[in-house]
């Protein structure tokens, strides 16, 4: 067990490789109850969400989810979040465990400064969150719910009962695989967890820890806030221009992000692969003629692709696909190559 965002969590159950492969080929079960939930409701909820987050929340229908970020006036990350539109004037943010208090305070302060009729509640203690991920996830979850799962599209959600427990069922995840995240009341979480493990038995479902969660998300080249980006990294630098609603009106950090998009960008996050037998881990320097010019933000040997991969923040002139990067690994310089993202795309996904 390790301490993570104030929670004791297992790094692994049966082993990172075994858990990782279970998710890629069958199914894995994750207890991600540590994630936080902050709800915003009221007549001005949408206007406040639009001001606080960089993506265009006006595009969301009720029942739809969007990847976005809480941004500072400098266009950097307070946190990366999922925005759920629960009802006409009701939004729910799913935020990173370690940032719950910080995000809540930020949202309250910024909403107050902006003005508007909106109630903001840290609802994290009301939700446990269980993720079932993998190509068999739908088949397994469907045995426990009457909700029409095939009708729930990627990044949409529905409500229903799972193992007779009222739940919000969201077709989202952090693995690059198809799957669902199920919000349930904490008191019933164990029952839902056990039911899913039991229902998944014929598919050899594996409970998965933080270790596999990290290797899976990195293989899908999904960012980890706090590791790949933080309050010093802008959304554009993080390679997440696609989560910026360029057409919407003003929002926190819009000016900086627009300038960077127009070309005022000095560094960016890139994906790399190492052909040598070595792993470049978080914090290892990227060097050019013996000078440190960048830094590795995530790196691992991925169990499914069996490659040494990672993300690094580098000067833009080192950012093009095919560029050779020199990474210092415990005193020796290892050669890496900038590669297109994502490293892994699930079969059948456009």
């Amino acid at each position, binding site marked *: 067990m390790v301490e993570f965002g104030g929670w004791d969590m297992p790094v692994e159950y049966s*082993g990172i490789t075994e858990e990782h492969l279970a998710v890629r080929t069958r199914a894995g079960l994750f207890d991600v109850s540590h994630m936080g939930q902050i709800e915003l409701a009221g007549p001005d909820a949408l206007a406040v969400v639009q001001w606080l987050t960089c993506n265009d929340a006006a595009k969301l229908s009720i029942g739809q989810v969007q990847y976005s970020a809480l941004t500072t006036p400098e266009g950097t990350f307070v946190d990366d979040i999922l925005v759920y539109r629960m009802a006409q004037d009701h939004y729910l943010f799913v935020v990173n465990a370690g940032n719950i208090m910080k995000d809540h305070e930020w949202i309250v302060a910024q909403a107050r400064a902006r003005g508007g009729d909106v109630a903001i509640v840290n609802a994290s203690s009301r939700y446990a969150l269980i993720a079932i991920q993998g190509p068999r996830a739908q088949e397994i979850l469907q045995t426990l719910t009457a909700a029409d799962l095939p009708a729930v599209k990627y990044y949409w959600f529905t409500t229903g009962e799972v193992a007779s427990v009222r739940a919000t069922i969201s077709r989202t995840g952090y693995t690059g695989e198809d799957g669902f995240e199920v919000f349930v009341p904490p008191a019933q979480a164990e029952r839902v967890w056990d039911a899913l493990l039991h229902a998944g038995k014929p598919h050899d479902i594996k409970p998965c820890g933080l270790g596999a969660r990290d290797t899976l998300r990195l293989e899908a080249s999904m960012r980890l806030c706090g590791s790949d980006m933080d309050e010093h990294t802008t959304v554009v630098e993080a390679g997440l221009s696609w989560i910026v609603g360029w057409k919407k009106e003003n929002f926190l950090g819009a000016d900086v992000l627009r300038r960077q998009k127009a070309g005022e960008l000095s560094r960016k996050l890139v994906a790399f692969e190492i052909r040598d*037998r070595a792993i470049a881990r978080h914090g290892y320097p990227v060097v050019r003629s013996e000078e440190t010019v960048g830094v590795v933000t995530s790196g691992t040997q991925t169990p499914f692709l069996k490659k040494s991969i990672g993300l690094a923040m580098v000067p833009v002139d080192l950012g093009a696909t095919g560029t050779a990067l020199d990474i210092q690994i415990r005193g020796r310089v290892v050669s890496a190559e900038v590669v297109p993202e994502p490293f892994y795309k699930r079969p059948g996904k456009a």
Partner: protein
Amino acid sequence: MYPSELKYTKDHEWLKSDGEEATVGITDFAQRQLGDVVFVELPEVGRQLKQGDTFGTIESVKAVSELFAPVSGEVVAVNPDLGSHPEAVNSRPHEAWMIRLRPSSPAELSGLLDASAYTALVK
């Protein structure tokens, strides 16, 4: 669990004496702490090690760790199979040797832990 014919260190290496020479690997406890091993970096044959010297690194999906020489001596061989099958360290930790040494000061051998002392250490 921990074979009685092996000697152990507090750094979780094992040593198996074999006449004039000895093989060295990491214990089951160590491999469980590391998780899935992906690379093992080993020294050149002929290198002279002092007791406690780093003789290589072992890298798992989640961490990298150094390997320490249980006793002083010259490296006479490294296990060629670990390059292509590093996972043997997880599946057969007490057989997947890393280096073969010719110990230079036999007195050091008697300072190593026996199986019961090591078992108590990791309990």
